[in-house]
């Protein structure tokens, strides 16, 4: 009896996913047929117009294609860099390209053909939908990061707050995943993600606030425009350091890789996930890495501002540098304990961030003169 209902659930899920996908494609056709016709007409008249069309932004440059490529490169780079530092070789054999750079693609193909196992004691619907939600919460902020005055998908006056809205949902999804797995390791991992978020979200807000104060706007576009002269990392170095640390905790990168600590709690909240459900989590985390690298570059490294080469290339270089810094921590740091993490967040980072805000308040008249 029980096994037959489980088989029914798999079939129902397959049908549900297929129907949802069909509805999505139909919506796409309705929403995109006119822009697609525009793009096709540009193809024959003026191909350079395609590069500034919003459809190009959604599908290729700051959108899907760019994020996918950077995420794949980051997965490869993290493994290869850690291997070099630890005197290993790392990924090597996959594909014809040198350095095993196709390894993430090979992994993706492997995961696509693996069985999805749904544990019999789990809350099945939540269990299956949590990876999709996590992927979406990681991907949506990408649309808010401006790559140049024209290359931004959603230029919203409160885009910094909207960014934090989406990233703030992430640990809740992880807690749901941990709870619905009905597994002790998963639930401990989800709880740890929640503690980590609660400890590091406040310093992140406070250090982002200093950029907001300097630029007098919540719009990431305005914040980047305010840094044409001097970057905010020069004016507010403390908050840049605090923000970077909080980003490491937010992304569960190495000194703070506590929620999924492999040697302690198997894989944390990912313990019960298999095949592509696991792959979707993994991909979502790296898409989030791209989003946060972009956010750090916009808030503190001047966004697209720079001499000689065009604006989007500066932004791409800065995103690459920040992402490399974030993934290189895997090779350099051990994992700290959860109580160390929480007390470091509350007793060191938050006082530092508050102190930094007081400094900015004291320097206000001088800073206003400098930036105007």
């Amino acid at each position, binding site marked *: 009896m029980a096994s037959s209902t489980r088989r029914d659930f798999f079939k129902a899920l397959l049908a549900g996913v297929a129907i949802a996908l069909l509805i999505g494609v139909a919506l796409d056709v309705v929403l995109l047929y006119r822009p697609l016709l525009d793009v096709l007409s540009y193809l024959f008249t003026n191909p350079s117009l395609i590069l500034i069309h919003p459809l190009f*932004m959604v599908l290729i440059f700051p959108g899907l294609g760019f994020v996918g490529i950077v995420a794949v490169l980051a997965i490869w780079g993290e493994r290869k860099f850690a291997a070099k530092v630890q005197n290993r070789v790392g990924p090597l054999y996959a594909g014809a390209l040198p350095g095993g750079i196709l390894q993430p693609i090979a992994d993706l193909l492997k995961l696509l053909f693996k069985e999805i196992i749904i544990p019999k004691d789990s809350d099945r619907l939540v269990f299956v939908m949590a990876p999709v939600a996590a992927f979406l919460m990681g991907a949506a902020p990408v649309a808010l990061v401006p790559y140049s005055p024209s290359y931004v998908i*959603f230029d919203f006056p409160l885009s910094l707050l909207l960014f934090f809205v989406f990233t703030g949902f992430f640990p809740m999804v992880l807690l749901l995943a941990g709870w619905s797995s009905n597994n002790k*390791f998963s639930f401990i991992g989800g709880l740890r993600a929640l503690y980590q978020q609660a400890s590091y979200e406040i310093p992140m807000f406070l250090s982002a606030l200093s950029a907001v104060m300097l630029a007098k706007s919540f719009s990431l576009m305005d914040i980047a425009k305010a840094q044409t002269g001097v970057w905010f990392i020069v004016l507010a170095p403390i908050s840049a350091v605090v923000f970077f640390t909080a980003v490491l905790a937010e992304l569960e990168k190495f000194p703070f890789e506590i929620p999924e600590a492999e040697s302690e709690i198997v894989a944390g909240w990912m313990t019960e996930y298999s095949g*592509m459900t696991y792959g979707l989590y993994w991909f979502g985390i790296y898409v989030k890495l791209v989003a946060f690298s972009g956010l750090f570059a916009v808030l503190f490294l001047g966004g697209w501002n720079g001499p000689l080469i065009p604006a989007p290339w500066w932004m791409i270089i800065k995103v690459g540098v920040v992402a490399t810094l974030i993934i290189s921590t895997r090779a350099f740091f051990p994992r700290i304990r959860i109580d160390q993490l929480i007390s470091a967040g509350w007793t060191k980072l938050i006082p530092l961030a508050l102190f930094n805000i007081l400094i900015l308040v004291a320097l206000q008249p001088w800073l206003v003169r400098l930036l105007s």
Partner: protein
Amino acid sequence: MLEADQGLYWFVVFVLIMLESGLLFYLIPMLLAPRKRSALKEETFEAGQVPPGSKRIRFALQYYAYLLLFLVFDVTIMFLFLWGFSFVNSGPWGFIYPLALVGVLIPPLVFTVKLSKAMDLW
């Protein structure tokens, strides 16, 4: 429709495309991957053992005090954000308001950090 709110329109399209790519990643293995089911495979994973008893056991929430502190801070931070928005045109209140807010935040911080060190209470 396109002229109404360009940015929001393309944001919705972007989120929709991301959702579809996520669902597509589900559909392909569901259609193509081999599916051999067994009772042991669908059992809860517990490092090689068949788990004894209930899986929903109770854990100690040792750091609950910090979660309460998070509530205090999260609300107060919103007021700091409002002040940060009006950074320039603030006059003397531009100094008093943030100092007062930071001053309000310090006592709960000290109190809760002390309280959370007393692990036996939780």
